């Protein structure tokens, strides 16, 4: 490729900058959309269930049962609804208004006193929401065990459970799900911006006929590509800063890593995203096709396969391998670490390498496909 002429490059970048600033849809996609998405994903996706609606059916009204009822209500995990007949409780669960029903059976007090292992409580959970169902199950179980233990200690009896399990979280001590979801959301949002914005850019020049005029001047392929990448890279970094500010200052997600590392990793990630977007834009000379391809190829994988919400290790082998091809996977992991851990260099270096390889791939492909004439390559 011929050398890059600085004057021409500057002129092209300047032109691109004017177009960005004066086109409302760029501003919308680069700034408004990410903030909105961040808020929605940060505040709406909350996996910490603390207000699970629970139904309670008391068939025994003895002192032990009443104590247990208090324990349930005081646990802070449930919103308990009592005093409602069984059929209605079940109906509410069917209709999705209750996540579970706890039945304190009529022989509750007796079973407890005799201690022969009989069933004292029945817990029904709404299995159609498996995640919440498992939380309901495990929370009730924990409350049940703890309550029994406390009773045992109060009454100095020996039917205490011998094993005392003490959980502690390594990183994210508050274990707020938001702290682990927001970094992933940022990665998804940045994918959308990076791929969507650039996909529109080149396609727009083709549709409006200005690409033809440009190609008739002495510009080189390198200048054309660089002039598309540089301004959008800057825009991407700005959007990243905006996301960081929103996450740390407004959503109060702690950030423990180094800003320098964040900058390097964001740049690498933007390289992949922009590369992919430019490739789509170059190959599809039509804004609509470019945008839809960008969303299908960029956004969907980022949502599903980056580790943002759905754990990668749980996926079958084929999908796990597939995630290695998705830039958002590396970026999500890096962001989760930078926010909640700090800056473990070797770990981050692995992610950086992945993104570097992908950047090279996409940028290389785009360069091959960029044509110096009107012919499609």
């Amino acid at each position, binding site marked *: 490729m011929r050398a890059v002429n600085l004057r021409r490059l500057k002129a092209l970048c300047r032109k691109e900058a004017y177009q960005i600033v004066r086109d409302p849809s760029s501003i919308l996609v680069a700034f408004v959309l990410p903030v909105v998405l961040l808020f929605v994903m940060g505040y709406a996706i909350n996996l910490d269930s603390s207000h699970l609606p629970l139904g309670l059916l008391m068939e025994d009204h003895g002192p032990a049962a009443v104590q247990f009822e208090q324990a349930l209500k005081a646990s802070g995990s449930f919103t308990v609804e009592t005093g409602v007949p069984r059929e209605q409780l079940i109906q509410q669960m069917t209709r999705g208004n209750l996540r579970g029903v706890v039945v304190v059976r009529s022989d509750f007090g007796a079973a407890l006193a005799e201690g022969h292992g009989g069933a004292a409580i029945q817990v029904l959970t709404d299995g159609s929401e498996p995640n919440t169902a498992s939380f309901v199950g495990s929370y009730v179980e924990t409350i049940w065990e703890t309550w029994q233990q406390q009773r045992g200690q109060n009454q100095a009896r020996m039917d205490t459970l011998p094993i005392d399990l003490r959980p502690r979280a390594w990183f994210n001590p508050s274990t707020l799900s938001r702290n682990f979801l927001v970094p992933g959301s940022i990665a998804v949002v940045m994918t959308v911006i990076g791929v969507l914005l650039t996909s529109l850019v080149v396609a727009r020049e083709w549709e409006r006929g200005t690409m*033809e005029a440009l190609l008739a001047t002495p510009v080189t392929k390198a200048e054309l590509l660089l002039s598309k990448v540089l301004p959008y890279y800057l825009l991407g970094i700005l959007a990243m800063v905006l996301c960081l500010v929103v996450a740390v200052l407004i959503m109060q997600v702690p950030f423990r890593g180094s800003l320098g590392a964040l900058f390097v990793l964001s740049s690498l990630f933007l390289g992949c995203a922009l590369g992919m977007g430019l490739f789509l834009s170059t190959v599809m000379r039509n804004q609509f096709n470019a945008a839809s391809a960008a969303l299908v190829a960029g956004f969907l994988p980022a949502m599903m396969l980056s580790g943002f919400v759905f754990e990668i290790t749980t996926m079958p082998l084929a999908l796990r391998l597939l995630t290695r091809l998705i830039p958002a996977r590396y970026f999500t992991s890096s962001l989760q670490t930078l926010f909640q851990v700090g800056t473990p260099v070797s770990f981050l270096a692995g992610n950086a390498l992945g993104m570097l390889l992908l950047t090279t791939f996409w940028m290389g492909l785009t360069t091959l496909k960029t044509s110096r004439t*009107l012919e499609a390559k």
Partner: protein
Amino acid sequence: MNVHRPAPQPEADSAFQPARPEAVAIEVKDLVKRFSPEGSAALNGISTWMKPGGITGLVGPDGAGKTTLMRTLAGLLAPTSGTVRILGQDPLPDGPLREQIGYMPQKFGLYEDLSVQENLDLYADLRGVVGEARRESFERMLAFTDLARFTDRMAGKLSGGMKQKLGLACSLLGAPKVLLLDEPGVGVDPISRRDLWRMVRDLARSGMTIIWSTAYLDEAELCDEVRLMNEGRILAAGTPAELMGAMLGRSLHLTNLAAPRRDVLQRALRAPEVMDGVIQGDNVRLVVRTAGQWPDLEPLQAGPEAALVEVAPRLEDAFISLLGGGPGGDSPLAVVTHAVILPGHTNQDAAIEARNLTKRFGDFIATDAVSFRVAKGEVFGLLGPNGAGKSTTFKMECGLLKPTSGQALVMGIDLKQSPSEARQRLGYMAQKFSLYTQLTAQQNLEFFSGIYGLQGEAQRLKMEGMIQAFDLGPWLSQRTLDLPLGFKQRLALACSIMHEPQILFLDEPTSGVDPITRREFWTHINALAQKGVTIMVTTHFMDEAEYCDRIGLVFRGKLIALGTPDQLKRDSITPDCPHPTMEDAFIHLIQAYQAERTEVAS
């Protein structure tokens, strides 16, 4: 289609290819360009040359290959085979030649979000024009194009004419030796087009080689040299004078007509000596096959005073002659169309009427108190520069826009009050023949007849009639996207008249088509008008304006002239211009109006 039309046999171009001079700026040998291996060739063996200095016109309808040729000359496309040399070099690879060629593509190549000055700066930087030379160039360009007052305005907000001038200015930066202009005058009003010509003439005089491609044959007459193209080949090359010279003695006017022009034209086209004919103002213009062999006046029934007079040939006559002659005057539509009977109470003189029609968009008055009436069976043309209020007026008359004040009436029915009553009787053909591109011709016909209420046997018969009349049989299961332009136009017309409308609205119905297809179209329109269909047309083609019975000229929202084409021409006679063409009349009337306004203001 059963019109009288011999198979198009382009005459051998050897008869019209003068000898190659010593010095040429551009040389093309056996150029072939195919975009896909199985598809047809966009350029089918072009061999020609262009002298340095002067304006060469590349003339031909859409699809002739003009843009493909221009792009190949600019180095934007690689030939499939053959050679191209500009100033002795191959334009394709990156090289110093790029700085010597200026190129203005069809959409002007301007960045709409950048201001005039910013666009100029960009191209100056890209072409390496810096320092003192840059300052000088800018001064000169801005003066030349009269855009000095608008340097800060966004290019997207400029009028069509101004965009054209800016596009030209940008392509001139760097002082190229060869300038390629791809249809610079398309969709721009005649005044702006004339300005552009003046500018380009000046450039040619200073030694620049200029290639100007166009579909307007009257524009081509002003070039120094002309290359007539059709379907990827060059039909003829030479100076306009040479080409028209071959037509000497073959162009005639039938004047002093006492009978309706359309009827006379139809009869004249049946005569075996006549190769082509159109309406020109009050007269009928004919082209005969052989000089000296004129048709008999008897069967034409043109009236006692009617006479055949020889007139100067036009380039269009030469073009039609090369293509083998125009279509006949008998349209199959005449057979399938029933005579129009307007409802009893309707005023026969006001099938379409505008009463003080006004439309405001915020502060901007698009149409200002426009009033006119169109009689039954009349063909009425609405003319005017882009943005003058012509399309707004047209849309209000169709019912697509609601007037701010005043009334738009169709057969006495106010479109604002009761639109649905009127709509069943209206036919509409949108710009660029709006058909559903992904549907086949058959599906389009079914749909349009269906939404106008045709069903069952009646629908089937009507569709059959249209398919026969327009010869659409072989194209029925093709997607309209793939149809050639001429058939698209026919299909669009068919779709708009299946429900037998009494009023027909046509929005720039023949933009981009070749002269023969245009004549065919007008043959159909004439047949409909003869049956009593009232027709309103908008157009940019001055020739087409002549086919209308009366014309309304809209400028800055006002109707500044109303009358027959010849009346308007007579109103525009000045000592400098004793025989104005339609275009001259257009420009004169607008300039007169503007002068009047400044007088009143001062």
